[in-house]
Structures are given as C-alpha cells and as structure tokens.
C-alpha cells in the first residue's frame, strides 16, 4: 500500500540560538500513501520537527538545521535555498499548524486563504483557482463550500476551521502533508471526522506525517509510529505492533496513560442527594434579538460521594449546566437545590456561607487565577473560606498539605500560575477547590488540555479523592474514556437536553441515542 519514498531524513539536528538544540538526530522516512505518526510528550520537539519538514524550523526566527540526509521528493533539501523552500512549500509539502484556531488569517476569507497556495505559483486563472478551492473545501468535508469560501475564520467553528486549514494545505495537492496536532482542539466526534479525512488523503496516495500526543488518533490512521522523546527517536514501528507491545519504557508509559483504567474501582457508596437540579433552562441573547437555548429542561441529581459524568459534543450546554449547579449563573426556569434547600433561588449574600461545600474546577484554570497572586496566596485565600479555616500561622502547612494531596511539591507555593505547566495548573486548581473541604466538586473538562500522561495522573488523583474523601463530583467532558475512568453515572447532552442517562458501563456498552453512539465510536472504545 505504500509507494515511493517521499521524505527521507536521517540525523536531523535542529537548534535555536536561544534555547539550544531541540532535535538531536532524528530519522524519519515516509512513503507515498503512508501515514507516519510522530508521538511524544509535551516539549518533545514534535512541532519543531513538523516545521522543519517545510523549512520553517524557527517560524521565521533563526534556527540551525543540520541533517545527515534530508531528501524531499528525491531532492536534497539540506541544500535548499530559501527560494527553493518557498517553491516547495504548498506544492511539495503542506503543513497544518498546531494552532488551528489561529492559523487562518481572521481578516481574509477562507477562500482566499485556501487559494493562496495556488496563487503563489500564478499558474492558474481565477476560475480554475476558485474551482480548485471549492473542491478542496468540499474534499475536506465542509458543507456548502461556496458559502464557506466567502466566510472568514471567525465565522467558522473549530472543527470547520481545522478542515479549512487542511484544505489550504492540500489544495495544491502536495505529495506530503504534515499535520501537527490536528485534533487537539476538537471534540471527539469532530476529531474523528478530521482523522477520517486524513485517512482518506493517505488512501489517495498522499504521504502523511501526523504529529500528535493522542494515541487514539494514532491507532485510527497511522501505519507507522515514531516515538519522540526530548528530541530523540526512542522507538519506531508499525502502529499495531508498537501500541500492543511497546519496547521502550517511555512508550509504554505513553500507551498505559492513554489506556485509561476502567472505572474508579472501590469507592464509598453514594449517600443522600446533595445537589438537585430540576427543569433547568437557560437561554442567551444573540446579537440582533434572537436567543439561543443553551440548556433546555434538564433534571439532575448528585448524591453524596457519587460521580456523575456529563458528556456531549461542543456547544451542547455542559458548561452552562455546570455553572448553574454552582449558582454562578441563574436558570431562567427550574431551580437548583443544595441539601434539599434552595440554592439557585437564594440571594448571593445568603449563598456565600454555603459556597464552601460546592466547588468548581474550571476548564481554563489560568483564567480563573489572579495573575498577580502566587500559588501560596491563592491557596491561602481559598483556605479562608473553609468551614474551619486554619489559623494564619497554620495556613502554609495547610497549603502544603493541599499541594501534597494533588502530588505537587511545596516549592510550587511561591510560583505564579503562569509559570506552571498545564498539568501543574490543573492540579493547583483542584487543590484550590479542595481547600474548603467541599462535598461536591464540579469539574469542567479538567483534562482535555493536558497530554496523555498528565491527564492520566490527574484522573488518578480524582479517583483517589473519591476514595479517600468521598467527594461527590460532576465531571464534564467530551471524552467518554475520561468519564468511564472516574464516574459512576453518565448523562449525555445534546442541544441543551439530556438525551441519555444511566450507569457508565451500560451507556457505553449499549448506547441508545445517536449522539452517544457517535461519541462512543469516536473514542474508539
């Protein structure tokens, strides 16, 4: 099924004047019709490798690229001048950048962006160009390509942008396509369709380099896998074999992390209802007077010590529901009860004392921390709200204990959240939420931004919290694997409604609703 070698690299070293060498001798071969996945943890050098393949190692900045062998379509790329690279880009090799949301110029139409790869060669007339653009957009799976071509990236959803971006990379039909994390920002069902698109391109003869940390994606489309760690290839092999029996410790860790354990295991039994939402409804105004219904008549009960999963595709109302449960947002209809008493209906002043019992771990922890404060101050503030706040002198000890509970060292205390890694931030957010000894934790996509290893560690932590503290949880995610790892029950949302509900195992093994089925299929469970 593979054809001629399209890309052949040996001993690739890439360094930066400020930051030193990032890739220390990487080998990579890709043939036509083959998809090679490059996987590795964050900072392994995957994106640098991807950019190097199109001669943009430094993103316009200076970079020092050396290779024993670097042939692109049979030509020696080490000798390429900038002009030669420019000619090759788009025509010989297309790149889909990691940051899909920012990779289309927001001021230009999608059509203009896609057409650019054709226009820079000036070989086609306008009509042909327009046809090719439309075809590329349609090929990429966008409906109404003519309309989309006239829209700008701001008018498109994330998944559509990602597909438009792929269209712009393949419109000139390059024999080699490099896709850097094309699915990270997308929810599972959309990600699945983007991966299908890549698979189709591969089947049509394009050589594909897929850079990702998502082993699920690798399993779906890649023929071979290259495992990168700190700029060195530690393992390489056919996908199935490598995932089934990783030789290297690092690879095994990656694979293990991706294969989340099945269920929380032994946890305390559920108790009385803590949070109860009945008939919850929330609409938002749209510019121009119309209203969008984000949550539409949802009933939900969380019992003490129980973990409820909330899944659904993007925009289905999960965050809105979680915010109403927190009473950060007031429902238009229905109400939320805490311990059987009114919660959403009470004025904020009355709610304040009870807030210690209900905590939210936000999707974006960075945005919810005052940028001026250190972790110490954040935790101290949180500790003050506990039902039995520690004395001033004991706060440091308490904060250190909280960090220990989320497996963070005490030296994190004096850092600002901005200087922490994503996984560390997420754990600080959890520690902050735990400070007031809440009975209910609302977790909004707590792991979707993290790489697999960190994700696994955070989920382990959640399970541990259930086990040791009996904290009830509402876990919002679009990833069924995550829900299965932590939760007992799952609610599937679509268009603001709960379309399916039940014990996790039942729903996953026998999904009844189409949305659930799509989610299950996307996850590949």
């Amino acid at each position, binding site marked *: 099924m593979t054809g001629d070698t399209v890309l052949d690299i040996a001993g690739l070293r890439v*360094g*930066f004047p400020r930051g030193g060498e990032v890739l220390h001798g990487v080998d990579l071969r890709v043939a036509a019709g083959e998809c090679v996945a490059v996987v590795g943890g964050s900072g392994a050098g995957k994106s640098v490798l991807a950019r190097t393949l199109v001669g943009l190692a430094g993103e316009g900045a200076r970079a020092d690229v050396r290779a024993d062998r670097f042939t692109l379509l049979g030509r020696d790329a080490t000798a390429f001048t900038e002009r030669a690279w420019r000619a090759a880009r788009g025509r010989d090799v297309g790149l889909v950048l990691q940051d899909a949301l920012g990779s289309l110029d927001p001021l230009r139409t999608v059509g203009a962006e896609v057409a650019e790869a054709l226009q820079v060669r000036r070989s086609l007339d306008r009509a042909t160009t327009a046809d090719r653009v439309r075809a590329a957009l349609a090929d990429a799976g966008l409906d109404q390509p003519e309309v989309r071509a006239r829209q700008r990236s701001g008018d498109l959803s994330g998944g559509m942008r990602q597909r438009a971006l792929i269209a712009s990379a393949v419109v000139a039909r390059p024999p080699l396509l490099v896709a850097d994390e094309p699915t990270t920002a997308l929810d599972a069902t959309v990600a699945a369709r983007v991966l299908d698109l890549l698979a189709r391109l591969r089947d049509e003869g394009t050589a594909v380099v897929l850079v990702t940390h998502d082993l699920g994606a690798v399993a779906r489309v890649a023929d071979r896998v290259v495992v990168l760690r700190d700029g060195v290839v530690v393992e390489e092999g056919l996908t199935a074999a490598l995932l089934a029996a990783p030789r290297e410790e690092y690879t095994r860790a990656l694979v293990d992390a991706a294969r989340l354990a099945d269920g929380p295991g032994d946890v305390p039994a559920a108790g009385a209802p803590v949070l109860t939402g009945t008939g919850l409804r929330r609409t938002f105004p749209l510019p121009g007077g119309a209203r969008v219904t984000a949550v539409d008549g949802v009933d939900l009960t969380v019992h003490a010590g129980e973990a409820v999963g909330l899944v659904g595709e993007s925009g289905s109302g999960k965050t809105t529901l979680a915010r109403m449960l927190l009473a950060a947002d007031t429902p238009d209809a229905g109400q939320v009860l805490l311990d059987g008493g009114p919660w959403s209906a009470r004025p904020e002043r009355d709610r*304040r004392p009870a807030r210690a019992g209900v905590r939210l771990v936000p999707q974006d922890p960075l*945005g919810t921390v*005052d940028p001026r404060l250190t972790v110490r101050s954040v935790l101290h503030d949180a500790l003050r*709200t506990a039902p039995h706040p520690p004395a001033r002198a004991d706060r440091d000890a308490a904060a250190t204990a909280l960090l220990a509970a989320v497996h963070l060292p005490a030296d994190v205390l004096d850092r600002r959240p901005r200087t922490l890694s994503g996984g560390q931030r997420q754990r600080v957010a959890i520690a902050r939420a735990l400070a007031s000894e809440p009975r209910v934790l609302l977790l909004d996509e707590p792991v979707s931004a993290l790489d697999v290893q960190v994700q696994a560690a955070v989920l382990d932590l959640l399970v541990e919290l259930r086990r040791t503290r009996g904290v009830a949880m509402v876990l919002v995610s679009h990833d069924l694997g995550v829900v299965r790892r932590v939760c007992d029950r799952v609610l599937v949302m679509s268009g603001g409604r709960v379309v399916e509900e039940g014990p996790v195992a039942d729903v996953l093994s026998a999904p009844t609703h189409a949305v659930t089925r799509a989610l299950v299929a996307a996850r590949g469970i």
Partner: protein
Amino acid sequence: MSVTTAGTRRVGLALRGLGVPGVLAALAVLGMAVAVLRPGLIAPGDPNAIDPRAGFAEPGAAHWFGTDESGRDVWTRVVHGAAASLGIGAAATAIGVGAGLVLGLAAGLGPRWLDAAVSRVLEVLFALPTLVLALLLVAVLGAGVEASVIAVGAATAPGYARMLRARVRSVATSGYVEAARMEGHGPVRVLLRHVLPNTLWPLVSVATLGVGQAVVWVCALSFLGLGTLPPAPEWGAMLNAGRVYIESAWWLTVFPGLAITVTAAALTVLGRRVGQVAA
C-alpha cells in the same frame, strides 16, 4: 549556532533582555533620581545665583552647559530643575490619574446609569484634543504653574478614565473575579484584593509614560505664554525663556529641551518595561 561560553551568554542574555534602550533608560532614570534627590552631588552651585556680567557664556570647562541670560549656570539649573519638572509632570499626572480613577471606577463599577452618564462626559471631553482642553482650562483658571498643572492633569484625565473604565470592566468580568466570588469571598474583599490591584497595576506603567508626556504638555503651555516665568529652574520655563536667544545662545534651548526629551523617552521605555512585567 555560534559557540559561546556559558558566562558570556548569560551576560548577553541579561543585556538583551533589557535591550540597549532599556540600559540607556535605566541609566537616564538613575541620573534623574540623583538629580531629584541629591542635586548638589552633581551640581553643587546655586541654580538661582545670578551674575549678569557672565551672561551668555558658551558651554565650556567653567560652565558645562553654558550660562543663561542672567549668568546662571545652565548645568546647575538643569540638574536642580529635575525635581521641579518631574514634580510638575508627576503632579499633573497624579491629577489626571486621580480624576481618571474616580471617573473610571465610577463608570466601571457603578450602576448602569452612572456608567452611561460618565461615558457621555468622557466622550465629550475626549472630543477635545489635550492641548485645546488644557488651553480652555488655563483660560478659566488663569495662567501660571499651578493652573497649567491642573489644566494638563484635567486634560489628560479623560484618557486615563477611558482606559480605567475599560480595564475595570474587563477585570470585573474576568474569570478570576468570578472564581473569587464563587469561592464565597464578599464583594468588598473581591474589590480590594482583585479588582483594584489588577486595575491599578497597569496604571503604573501608563502613569510612568504619562509623567513624561505631562512634562511636555506643561512646557507647551509655557511656550504659549500660559505657563510660568523663571527664575525657578524648571525645564519648560528654562527652555521657553532661553528659546528667544536661540540664534545666539543655542545651549539655552538645546539642553533643557534635551532634558525634557531624554526624561520623557526614558520614562516611556521604563513605562513599557513595567507594562511588560504587569502584563
């Protein structure tokens, strides 16, 4: 990549982090600090000591920056003038920032009608260029140094107020303020601990920039005959008094002007650095 030893690289990185302008600005600010706090250290003379017979001496060994029309030493006056000029700039900026703060906070935190009212007022004031507004205020208040300080302060206030209002709004609706409220902290604590500090912190950088600008505006008023007369050594006054002799005694114009420009530039660079730290 060129091979460099770790040591020189570290020095290089530190310098590059500051940048050439940063280093120069830091030096200039250092010099200004000395001039403000201990002018006698670098210019021991009396800035107001006249010696009419020694007037219009060219810059030289005896008088580094020459002497002015009354025989006063320009270097001494420039150095001793730092406190006055920066004081004027700081005072005008303080007025501007203070008024802007009140308006901006009222609009940003107050009820909707107050916001609407204040926003309209700001729109009107903003529709007048700074100097035009300052000119009108001086017409109302009468010329003089206090009046021009107040005028420049008031004329720059709308800009600060607009900035603050936007800033307050964005901070008040930020995720971390909501998070603090959801954590059960009361409104007063949220205001004091999060909203105010995060609103005011960027102001440090803006105000630093503003001091330099204010010095220039106040000098512009002096130029238009609405500011101050010497003999108080104040750069704007010196410049405007010296400017009429520009044909025969360029140093009377050039040195105070340089002092203003260098100060404003250094404060700008510094303000931007602070802004970067604040961001």
